[in-house]
């Protein structure tokens, strides 16, 4: 009970922290919307040439674009979550203080990242999706059940995204200079989440592999759940996300144990 209250408090402070910067949020919404328009037009051209490309019709493809813009900040698909701060704390030794605390390191950062994601879903996700729905004909479901499943998928997307970024962040314990790691993490996320192009469009065996990687759980699967393209009424997608979430969080725990055994804090 105590643990739950504590983590709720951490999550709430994560939410408030991002909610403080209103101008920055508005700026982000503007940029997401502009990118949404650019991508939407390229997708229109693409689906005009090949209707039903990747199993979507044009309206579904446009919906995919705007879901992507809504998820970009929420699931930190292009970076921008907790990891920069985490790296800084590893480099300057503050992580020792975090390890002293009577809370688990992974759970602490997870709670704060969930708070951030919750704010960014509301603050940065809703408006671009609404603008997209005004400007283009999107395929949005009318059934509340599908929306509820979509919310679950968004939650799991954030969990998988966190678990992935946490693994990369932990490598900072060994490499110290983490800028290269962050770049690699972002690069993989942008390409393999479906941010540039839906993964269903990727051809052949490459596409088969890409659709099974954990990054697919961060955008492709939530989009498919909303579009009704995920098998078993969306449950197959949620199962896929859940499986990766468990595997990656467990891997994070193992790596964290190894990292904290290794940590050496310079005195002084």
């Amino acid at each position, binding site marked *: 009970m105590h643990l739950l209250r504590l983590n709720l408090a951490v999550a709430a402070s994560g939410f408030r922290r991002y909610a403080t*910067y*209103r*101008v*920055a949020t*508005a*700026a*982000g919404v*503007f*940029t997401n919307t*502009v*990118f949404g*328009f*650019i991508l939407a*037009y*390229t997708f*229109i*051209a*693409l689906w005009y*040439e*090949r209707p039903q*490309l990747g199993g979507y019709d044009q309206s579904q493809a446009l919906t995919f674009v705007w879901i992507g813009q809504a998820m970009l900040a929420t699931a930190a698909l292009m970076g921008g979550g907790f990891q920069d701060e985490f790296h800084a704390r590893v480099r300057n030794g503050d992580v020792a203080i975090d390890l002293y605390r009577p809370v688990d390191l992974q759970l602490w950062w997870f709670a704060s990242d969930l708070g951030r994601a919750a704010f960014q879903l509301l603050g940065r996700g809703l408006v671009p999706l609404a603008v997209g729905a005004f400007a283009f004909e999107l395929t949005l479901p009318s059934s509340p059940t599908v929306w509820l499943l979509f919310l679950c998928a968004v939650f799991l997307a954030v969990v998988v995204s966190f678990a992935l970024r946490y693994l990369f962040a932990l490598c900072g314990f060994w490499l110290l*200079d983490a*800028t*290269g790691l962050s*770049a*690699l993490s*972002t*690069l993989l996320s*942008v*390409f393999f989440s479906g941010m*540039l*192009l839906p993964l269903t*469009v*990727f*051809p052949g065996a490459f596409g088969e592999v890409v659709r099974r990687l954990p990054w697919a759980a961060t955008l492709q699967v939530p989009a498919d759940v909303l579009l009704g393209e995920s098998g078993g009424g969306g449950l197959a997608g949620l199962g896929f996300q859940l499986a990766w979430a468990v595997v990656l969080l467990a891997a994070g725990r193992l790596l964290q144990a190894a990292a904290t055994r290794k940590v050496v804090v310079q005195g002084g």
Partner: protein
Amino acid sequence: MAEPGAVERRAPGRGLSARRALGGVAWGLRAYGFIAAMWVRSTMAYRASFAMMLVANFTTTFLDFAAIMIMFSQVDALGGFALPEVAFLYGTSCVAFGLADLLLGEAERIGRRVRDGTMDILLTRPVPVLSQIAADRFALRRLGRITQGALVLGWSLTRLELEWTAGSVLLTVSMVLCGGLIFGCLFVLGGAFQFWAQDASEVQNAFTYGGTTLLQYPPTVFGKELVRGATFVVPLAFVNWLPALRVLGRDDPLGLPGWVDFAAPAVALLCCAGTALVWRAGLRSYRSTGS
């Protein structure tokens, strides 16, 4: 050159003589060179890290083209343009943007400097503020984007079956140079905007990163309104669309008169003049946070 910073700090309206203004620009460029060289030396102290960042920069920016290649694995043309033509647009947009990003990309950190108070330090040094800001953390890794764009551009030139004339060669070179200037202006304008709205640094991404993404695709892909906006409001079309359509022998979807295709240098100069005014206004309106 006795008091190099004097030109920058002079009160406006006292009538700069042309020679002193030129002297100021020359000193600004030299100062930029000094600061940039210092950062290059500092980067080269960690060669392995630099090599990794260079590769990362190259690969990250290449993914955009990888997405375009995947698109073309499914279709033969996009907006009526074949892959080599899109690659030509992509290459010119990418190299022009890469140059601006390398030389002026750091201007996007002004908001942070205003917030944490380090802007004050820049104002006390006898070096133009723009030189200091633009050369700060000068990052050679950004050559990754330029190299990548240049490779795609080179590939497209081998695939395009065009009759190359002196005019079209000149147009292609000017796309990269004038395009770089126009993107550079956007970076500085975005920076100046942050004197008024410190937290809004992301707005400029819509024009800089958004702009280069827009220009990677043919104008026929986009709605007429968007193309008009990118021609008359933010003059992105002059970076590569208009001159590239001429080189590729394509019609311009807006049906503008033909001489517009050659107007990029004039547009770039106008942008620079406008940007200089906005930059000065921004700098004058700067209020220290006092911390």
